[in-house]
């Protein structure tokens, strides 16, 4: 047990848990480490089953980090290890510069977790519930009350705060769970399927809250979700895991490059006689896509778009084609996800951050 000890060794605060001043200084120094979350080969084994296998990844301070993977990929187990709920079987990890095993009590003070399925004390109302958790975090009474009211307001439960939680819908409970995970003003939030069961307005509200927290308070967000749209719109970096192993990590652009996908443009042109012959004079590689009743033909151009789009459009005009519409074409996160989670063999060196070449072997189910 750590105790706050005065210079001459006299105990000045005998209450538990207490800390040596030295430990507090060390903890503060560690927390200033730039990497918010750093996993170094963490593994979790249940008997002969490896739920997480040598996972190595980094989440930078201030990131909104997407953590993707199919069901049973080890996402929830990883989050539980990082939050100190599970001990890794091998490897180690740091959260805010603190060791997840040695400093788990300190970590719990500075993180928030919204689990996939949260339980609630149904006989309490939302305000009582949040105040209860504020007290467990030893937040002083008036601060706890102010924070509780602010959080209930921001998650849209202020007008229902006096109703017993037992009467809440799944979506309302999810909002309350988010409020609970924020009661201690965490520096890092782990969210496991935060928008599950929420209506579109609820999903939008949660996205808004997360963006506000990230932009205004610099909170690092670790988001595990199957809602790829949420991940795409919120996250600046992401990791994809499969069968407990890291498949790839990086920004969406880096992941697209990793699977060989690239951005391009789609030019819709009015169909006319001799279209294919005219197009053969175009100096860009293109694909003709299905058109709309053949009156409008879509042409996808993926190579050479580093040149000005105007030049491409001028080239099309020169061959006497009428442009109806121009739009960007991007490989979706869904495509990237399917390609990467269909990978049969994977080497940890293939992560984007290490600039190694990826040799993707795609399984037939996604081809």
């Amino acid at each position: 047990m750590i105790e706050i000890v005065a210079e001459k060794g006299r105990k000045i605060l005998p209450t538990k848990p207490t800390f040596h001043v030295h430990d507090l200084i060390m903890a503060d120094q560690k927390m200033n480490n730039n990497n918010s979350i750093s996993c170094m080969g963490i593994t979790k084994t249940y008997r002969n089953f490896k739920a997480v296998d040598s996972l190595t990844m980094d989440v930078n301070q201030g990131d909104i980090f997407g953590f993707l993977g199919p069901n049973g990929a080890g996402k929830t187990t990883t989050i539980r290890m990082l939050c100190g709920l599970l001990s890794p079987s091998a490897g180690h990890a740091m959260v805010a510069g603190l060791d997840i095993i040695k400093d788990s009590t300190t970590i719990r003070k500075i993180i928030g977790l919204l689990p996939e399925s949260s339980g609630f004390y149904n006989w309490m109302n939302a305000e009582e519930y949040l105040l209860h958790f504020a007290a467990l975090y030893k937040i002083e009474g008036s601060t706890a009350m102010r924070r509780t009211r602010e959080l209930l307001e921001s998650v849209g439960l202020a007008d229902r705060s006096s109703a017993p939680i037992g009467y809440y819908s799944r979506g309302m409970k999810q909002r309350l769970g988010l409020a609970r995970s924020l009661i201690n003003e965490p520096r890092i939030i782990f969210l496991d399927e935060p928008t599950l069961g929420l209506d579109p307005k609820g999903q939008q509200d949660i996205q808004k809250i997360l963006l506000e927290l990230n932009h205004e308070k610099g909170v690092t967000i670790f988001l595990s979700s199957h809602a790829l749209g949420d991940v795409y719109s919120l996250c600046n970096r992401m990791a994809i895991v499969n069968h407990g192993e890291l498949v790839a990590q990086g920004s969406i652009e880096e992941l697209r490059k990793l699977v060989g996908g690239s951005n391009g443009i789609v030019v819709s042109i009015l169909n006319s006689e001799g279209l294919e012959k005219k197009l053969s004079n175009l100096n860009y590689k293109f694909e003709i896509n299905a058109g709309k009743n053949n009156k409008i033909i879509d042409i996808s151009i993926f190579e050479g778009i580093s040149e000005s789009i105007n030049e491409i459009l001028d080239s099309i005009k020169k061959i006497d084609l009428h442009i109806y519409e121009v739009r960007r074409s991007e490989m979706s996160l869904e495509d990237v996800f399917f390609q990467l989670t269909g990978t049969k063999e994977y080497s940890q060196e293939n992560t984007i951050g290490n600039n190694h070449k990826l040799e993707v072997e795609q399984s037939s189910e996604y081809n």
Partner: protein
Amino acid sequence: MMLYRHEISGSFYSWRGSAWIIAASLIFSLVAYLLLTDKELSLLDQGEMLFTLAEVIIALGIAMSAVSASSAISSEIESGTLESLLLTPITHSQIAIQKMFSIVTTWAILYLVSIPYLIVVASGTNLALSAVLYVGLYGTLLVIAISMISIVISWRLKSSKNSIMMTLMIVLILLAPSLFFGTSLKKTDFGLALENINPVSQAMNSMDNILVDNEQTYLQQISHILPVIAFTFICTLIFVVFTRKFEVKSAE
């Protein structure tokens, strides 16, 4: 002690939460009424009447604490609330200790409710103080011990149904010599051995000596008190060792 306050408020929330106090009062009233008015029971020696009531109070206290302690952790696991609790800076041991204290508080309330009944049944004798003191002493030690062992079972089995069944079996084994063994079985080697190692039997024998046989010196009771203290100490050790660390697996 926030979790302790939460547990207590949960136990007494609304009239349904407090219904057990009314039920306990009714049981004590019925037992005391039968002892004092029933033609056959009223023929008993007053010390024996008091001993019977003391047995009922302690047995009820043990049963209540066993049931509520055996679901203390498993119900949190089953309702998915343990995870959020474990995420706060509160330690695993603190969770277990505060839950144990809330159960002991429930016993304390039951004990306070029982005191007037003990005094009424002891009226006219000099046994009232001894009855109140020894029911308090043995009841508290046994409730603490049973609560701790039940919390450990709840912590390990992670299922309220299984842990309640397991705990009730232990309680039945502990209560068996006092409640179910006939005089002849008690006199066999097996019966004697079981009584000697059984803390509940030791507590009941001690109260039998005090209330029925009128052996009221502490020195005479030391051979009965020590096994109860030893049992509580062993349960405390088990409690400390097994509630240090707890993991919430993904499937839970």
